[in-house]
């Protein structure tokens, strides 16, 4: 008989996330991986600004909360001081791909031996559904009310494709949370990233395609389906860089 137990990687707090949001599940995947790899006691997480700012309340490791976009710089500071610890950031698309693009790309370029969990839900969730760097063409947000227009707003930033070009990146994979099989794949990818960090292989980034039912104005199930139907063609899943398989 299989007995389900709450991961030691999670605290006892209930998350503040909206119904249907996948942040809680992604937290759980990170927590389970850190626990399974025996890393909880030697890991420092970096919470970013956005919905996941409170990840320090939920994931059972030491944490620093970084200014908006600066998670990878803060992670660099920690990892350089404590090279034998595991350091990860948990960032949204706005934090990483807009305000923090420079910090994130340069951390990758230096080959900082850190892991980035980047959650792409194509919107600014915490501030109420504004256009994100990853919003789709035609996607209606509170700051693109007629839908994102390429000529005016540019196109969605393809984080995994961009970071795969960077020499210092060791492992880049895009996964999705839209069904159970993909949740499992996401966990596998996260585990691989942390394993690579343990082996000092360099910068690892897992881009997780996610949902924001409340700001997308959809039911949770609809949001998952929408992410599959509309996001995945723009953000194809897969491994974009693996130093072990050049």
């Amino acid at each position, binding site marked *: 008989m299989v007995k389900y137990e709450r991961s030691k990687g999670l605290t006892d707090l209930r998350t503040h996330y909206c119904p249907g949001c996948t942040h809680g599940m992604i937290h759980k995947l990170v927590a389970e991986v850190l626990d399974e790899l025996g890393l909880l006691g030697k890991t420092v997480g970096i919470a970013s600004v956005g919905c996941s700012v409170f990840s320090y309340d939920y994931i059972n*490791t*030491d944490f620093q909360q*970084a200014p908006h976009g*600066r998670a990878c710089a803060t992670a660099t500071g920690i990892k*350089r001081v404590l090279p034998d610890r595991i350091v990860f950031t948990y960032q949204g698309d706005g934090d990483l791909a807009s305000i923090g693009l420079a910090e994130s790309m340069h951390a990758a370029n230096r080959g900082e031996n850190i892991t980035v969990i980047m959650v792409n839900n194509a919107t600014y969730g915490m501030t109420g559904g504004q256009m994100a760097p990853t919003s789709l063409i035609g996607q209606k947000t509170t700051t693109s009310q007629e839908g994102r227009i390429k000529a005016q707003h540019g196109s969605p930033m393809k984080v995994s494709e961009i970071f795969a070009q960077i020499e210092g990146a060791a492992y880049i994979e895009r996964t999705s949370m839209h069904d159970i099989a993909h949740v499992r794949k996401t966990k596998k990818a996260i585990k691989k990233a942390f394993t690579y960090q343990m082996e000092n292989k360099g910068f690892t980034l897992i881009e997780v395609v996610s949902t924001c039912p409340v700001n997308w104005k959809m039911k949770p199930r609809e949001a998952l389906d929408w992410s599959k139907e509309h996001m995945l063609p723009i953000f194809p899943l897969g491994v974009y860089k693996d130093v072990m398989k050049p």
Partner: protein
Amino acid sequence: MSKVLMKGNEAIARSAILAGLDAFFGYPITPQNEIPEYLSKLMKEAGKIFVQAESEVAAINMVYGAAGAGARVMTSSSSVGIALKQEGISYIAGAELPCVIVSVMRAGPGLGGIQPSQGDYYQATRGGGNGDYHVVVLAPESIQETVDIMKQAFDIADIYRNPVMVLVDGLIGQMMESVDLDKPIKKRHIEPKTFITNGTDYHKGRNIVNSLGLDPVYLEQHNLALQRKYNEIRKHEVQYEMVNMDHAEYVIVAYGTVARIVRSAIDSLSKMNINVGLIRPISLWPYPKKAFDLIPETCKGILVVEMSLGQMLDDVLISNKDRYKVGFYGRSGGMVPDPDEIVEAILHFDEKVVD
């Protein structure tokens, strides 16, 4: 105890290492480039951490991370670069982490120029970051004093878990003087760092470095606790020098390299039988208000001299409490005042009086 001839920026780098610097994060900007250049070599040789960041913003956030992880950490920059660091400085102050920030002032506003200036007094003492916070600001006048203050700065940062800024102008950064690098400083008690994020295997419970406080009740309590700490700093960390105050007819207030120029002016004035004293604030925050209680009754006026168009002047007006007439003489844009200009300003004090 042997003296060596050193450029100010190199002396800053060297004294930081002597103070136990573990990690440096910076970004190039004139006139402080010799600090990271020198440290890039010295830190490597010492097996310590040196990172040239992609921007000042990244550098200060690396400082934030490294300070949270328990390192003795510093960054250096100048004017426009310090402006970019202000967000991070507010976070570091809010999360109560220790670090040292060296600011080698150039002339502003905007991109400005690269000649010496004191135009960043407000930036240092008032800060551009958000919220009710303070940074300890120490302003030496010579390279020897810079070396001594650099060593003190790391201790003060650790004792109060607060950023300490060492504020010099491009003159100190660029000139050479002989210094004794080994001059000892007062040994101070520093509590072990129990707050650091180094993994829960290494301490009790979970450590979280954070400045978020969405609950106003909590955040007000946090801010009040910070104020109590700032009051302790006001009580214990004020530094200033008073020169030639007996029977002074005028008192000049100046800090940093300007104070040295003022000393020459005071010598000239003394030959003209005009007795002028000097208050030289060394800590700009906390400001040495109590020095103004020691001004003799013979004083006819206070002249503030700055390489700015009147910034420290505000703190003098606050500290003076309307007791004496206050005059101001300042140069700006990278122009350095000549001792004769200061002599003239005293001779025509009434024309310099500000409202």
